C-alpha cells in the first residue's frame, strides 16, 4: 500500500509551517533516512527524513507553499513492487490524517445540542465595542506574537533606556520567536542574550533598573522564573518601599505562563495567582492581540515592576489590532468582552477562550452571558466585575490555574463583600484540576478547564 508522507510538527504547539524545499522529485528512488524536504516555521528549519522506502510517486504540496497544516499529506511513496502511477492517483484526501498528538491539548468545545434549543427565545448576540478604539479605525490582523514584538519595538524606538534581556532573545530571536527582528534593529547592546541564569539575569535586570535603565526581562517560560522569584518579589517589588522611596525600578518580566501542550507538570504551571498576591507588583495577563500590544506598551512605560504573563498557545492566534500610532491599553482596567444580562463570566488570558466559547454556546440556549476580561490581575478592576454582577446577579470565574487560593477565590470573596445582596446564586469557579499537570495527552485535556465546564457552571448558577 502506498505510504503518505505527512507534514511533520517541530513541536507540540506547531500548527502549520512552510514547505520550503523538496530535495527529491517525483519518480526518485527513496531510501529510509534520505532527507527529502525542508520544513520551516517561524521558529526553526527542519529536514524531513524518509522513514519508508520506495519511489516518490507524487508530490501533493509544492515547495514554497506556506501555512501547510501539520499532518496534511505532502507526498506519497509507492513501495517496491507497487504501481507508481496508481499510488500517484491517490489524492491527499484518500488517507485520513493521523490524529495529531498535540490536538489533545486543544480545547475543542463540546458543542451544545443546537437542534434542541430551537424553541428557546432568540437573543441577539451583542459584542461590546471596545470603547478605547475610535470609530472608523482601520483594523489589522496580527498574531499575539507579532503584537508583543511590535509593542517592544515601538517602546524601544521611543525610549533609549528600554532594553530586552533573556535567554535566546537576540540571535535566536526568542525561544518562541517573540523578539523577531529586534536584534537587527536595535543591536546587541539593547537586545541581550544571557547565559542560562534566570536568577542571575533577573537580578541583573533589577540592578540595571535601579541604575536607571528600563529592562524587559524575557523568561523562556514563567516556569523558569521560579528560579528568579526572589529577585521579582524581594528585589523588584520591595526595594522602592524599603528604601523609603529612594530607589525603584521600571521593569517588565514577561514570557509564556501556564500550560502549553504536552510539557508535563514542571513546565505547565500557571503563576497568575502567585504574583497577584505581592504588594509592589503589577500583574497583567492579556487575551487578545490588541490588549497584548497595548498592555505591554503600558507595562514598559510603567515606573513600577510589572509581571506580564503571556501564553504559548495564544502566540500564534490572530486577532484584529487597531491601526493607531500609539495604541496602549491602561493597566488596571478590565474589559467587557461581550455584553449580556443573565450571568457574568469573568476570566483572563487563555481562560477567555473557554469563557467566550461558553457564552456563545449559552446564547444558543437562550442564555445571555456577559464576559468580563480582567486583563490586569493586580491591581484588579473589581468595579467592572461588580457592576456586571449587579446587572446579572450571577458569576462564574474561569482560569487555567489551580482552584485553591485562585483568582476565582479572590473574586468570589470580593463579591461576597461588595455585592452580597446582588448575588442570586453562589459564585462558581472553573479552574484547572487540583493536580500537577499530567503528561498524558488524555489526562492533560481533562486537567484543564473547557467550554463545557464553564457552560455547566453557568447553568448551575442559573439553576437550569
Amino acid at each position: 500500500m502506498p505510504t503518505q508522507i505527512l507534514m511533520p510538527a517541530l513541536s507540540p504547539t506547531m500548527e502549520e509551517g512552510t514547505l520550503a524545499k523538496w530535495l527529491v522529485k517525483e519518480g526518485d528512488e527513496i531510501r529510509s533516512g534520505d532527507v527529502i524536504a525542508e520544513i520551516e516555521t517561524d521558529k526553526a528549519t527542519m529536514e524531513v527524513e524518509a522513514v519508508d522506502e520506495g519511489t516518490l510517486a507524487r508530490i501533493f504540496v509544492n515547495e514554497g507553499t506556506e501555512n501547510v497544516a501539520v499532518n496534511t499529506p505532502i507526498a506519497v511513496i509507492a513501495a517496491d513492487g507497487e504501481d507508481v502511477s496508481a499510488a500517484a492517483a491517490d489524492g491527499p484526501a484518500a488517507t485520513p490524517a493521523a490524529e495529531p498528538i498535540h490536538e489533545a491539548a486543544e480545547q475543542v468545545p463540546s458543542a451544545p445540542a443546537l437542534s434542541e434549543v430551537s424553541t428557546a427565545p432568540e437573543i441577539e448576540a451583542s459584542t461590546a465595542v471596545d470603547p478605547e478604539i475610535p470609530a472608523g479605525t482601520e483594523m489589522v490582523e496580527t498574531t499575539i506574537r507579532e503584537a508583543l514584538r511590535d509593542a517592544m519595538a515601538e517602546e524601544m524606538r521611543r525610549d533609549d533606556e528600554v532594553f530586552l534581556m533573556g535567554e535566546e532573545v537576540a540571535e535566536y530571536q526568542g525561544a518562541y520567536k517573540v523578539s523577531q527582528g529586534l536584534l537587527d534593529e536595535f543591536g546587541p547592546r539593547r537586545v541581550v542574550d544571557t547565559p542560562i541564569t534566570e536568577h542571575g539575569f533577573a537580578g541583573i535586570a533589577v540592578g540595571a533598573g535601579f541604575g536607571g535603565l528600563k529592562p524587559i526581562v524575557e523568561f523562556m517560560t514563567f516556569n523558569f522564573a521560579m528560579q528568579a522569584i526572589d529577585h521579582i518579589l524581594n528585589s523588584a517589588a520591595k526595594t522602592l518601599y524599603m528604601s523609603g522611596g529612594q530607589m525603584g525600578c521600571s521593569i517588565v518580566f514577561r514570557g509564556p505562563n501556564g500550560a502549553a501542550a504536552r510539557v508535563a507538570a514542571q513546565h505547565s504551571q500557571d503563576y497568575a495567582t502567585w504574583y497577584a498576591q505581592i504588594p509592589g507588583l503589577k500583574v497583567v495577563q492579556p487575551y487578545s492581540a490588541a490588549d497584548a500590544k497595548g498592555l505591554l506598551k503600558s507595562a514598559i512605560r510603567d515606573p513600577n515592576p510589572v509581571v506580564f504573563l503571556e501564553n504559548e498557545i495564544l502566540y500564534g492566534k490572530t486577532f484584529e489590532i487597531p491601526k493607531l500610532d500609539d495604541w496602549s491599553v491602561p493597566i488596571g482596567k478590565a474589559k467587557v468582552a461581550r455584553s449580556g444580562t443573565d450571568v457574568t463570566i469573568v476570566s483572563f488570558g487563555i481562560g477567555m477562550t473557554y469563557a467566550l466559547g461558553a457564552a456563545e454556546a449559552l446564547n444558543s440556549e437562550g442564555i445571555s452571558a456577559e464576559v468580563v476580561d480582567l486583563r490586569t490581575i493586580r491591581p484588579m478592576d473589581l468595579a467592572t466585575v461588580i457592576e456586571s454582577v449587579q446587572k446579572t446577579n450571577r458569576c462564574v470565574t474561569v482560569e487555567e490555574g489551580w482552584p485553591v487560593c485562585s483568582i476565582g477565590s479572590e473574586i468570589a470573596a470580593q463579591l461576597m463583600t461588595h455585592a452580597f445582596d446582588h448575588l442570586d446564586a453562589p459564585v462558581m469557579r472553573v479552574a484547572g484540576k487540583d493536580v500537577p499537570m499530567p503528561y498524558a495527552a488524555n489526562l492533560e485535556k481533562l486537567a484543564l478547564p473547557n467550554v463545557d465546564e464553564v457552560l455547566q457552571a453557568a447553568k448551575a448558577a442559573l439553576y437550569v
Partner: protein
Amino acid sequence: MTFKTGCEITCHKFLNEDGSVVGILPEFARDAREMVPLYRAMLLTRSFDEKAVALQRTGRLGTYASSLGQEAVGVGVAAAMRADDVLLPSFREQSAMLWRGVGMTELLLYWGGDERGSDFTDARHDFPICVPVATHLPHAVGAAFALHRAKSDAVAVAIAGDGATSKGDFYEAINAAGLWRLPAVFVINNNQWAISVPRAKQTAAETLAQKAIAAGIEGIQVDGNDVIAVRHVVSQALKRARRGEGASLIEAVTYRLSDHTTADDASRYRDDEDVSQHWKSEPMRRLKAYLQANANWGQDEDEALKSEIVKLVDDAAQSYLETPPPPPQSMFEHLFAELPAVLEQQRAMIVARAERHA
C-alpha cells in the same frame, strides 16, 4: 589530553600588626598624614557600632550587626571609590556607607525599623543596605551594565560576606560580569564566620578569591585588617574596570570580633581564646601605631579626635531618638510610584483607625 589550570592568588599587605611597613607603600600612602582620615573613619565606625549596640541593648534599636574588627574593609573600599561610583553594601558595611556620605542618623533610623533611613540625603545613587545574603551581587552587575550603557567610567562596587560566596547569586553575578566584561568590583568581607558557620565549613576552596578564576575575572586576596592594602587593591581594581578591563573579585581577610548580630551569642560556638588571638591583628591598633611612628600622631590628638567622634555619635543618636515614628499612612507610601485606587480604601481605613486610637 590533560589541562592544568594554574591558580596563583596574591595576598596584599603593607602594614604589619605592629604598624611596621612591609614593602613599598602605594603612592597615596606615601605621606602618612594622608592616612589620618582613614583612621578617623575607622574610629567613627567603631564608636558608632558601640553606640548602636548600646541602643539595642536598652531596647531603643532593632537587631544590629556590628562591624567590630572589620572597619578597615569598608573604609578601604570607600576611600578608593569616586563619588560617582555606585556602592552596594551588605548589612555590615556601615564604615563604607558613612564614608560615602550616609548619615549616622539615617543608619540608626534604618536599624530602628524606619525605612526613611534608606532614603539617603547624600549618596543617592548608592544602593540601600541589602540584608538578604548575596542578592545585591547580581544587582551590582546590573548597575555596572547601566553605567557601561551610559558610557560612564564609573564602577559598581558590592561588598558581601564570606558566606555569600556559597550562594548562586554570587556565581551567577561574577559569571555574567566576566562574560560581559563589566565595570564591577566584588569585595568579599571574609570575617571567617557566617553566623556560627566557620569559613572552613563554607567551602573546600583554599581561598575565596580563587572563585574568580572560573568566572574569568581577576581574583585578589588582601589583608582586610590593613586599610592601606584594601584601599590599594580596590584602587587597582577600579582602574582596571574604568579602562574596560572588566570585573575583579577581592577577598579581604579579616575577623568578626563581635557577635554576628545583637541577636547572637558567639561564645556559644567559638572559643574565647581564638577571639583573643584575633584582637592582636585588628585594624585600628596597627594603623594607630603606624601614624604614631610616621605621622607624628600623638596621644593628645588621639584623645581630641575620640572626643569629637563621641560627640558626633551622641548627637546622631539623639537626633534618631527624637525622630517621631512614621505616620500611619506612610505604610502605603512608596509601594508603587502612584498608589492604585484599590489601595486608597485600605489607607483611609488605617488612618481612621489610628485617629480613633489617638
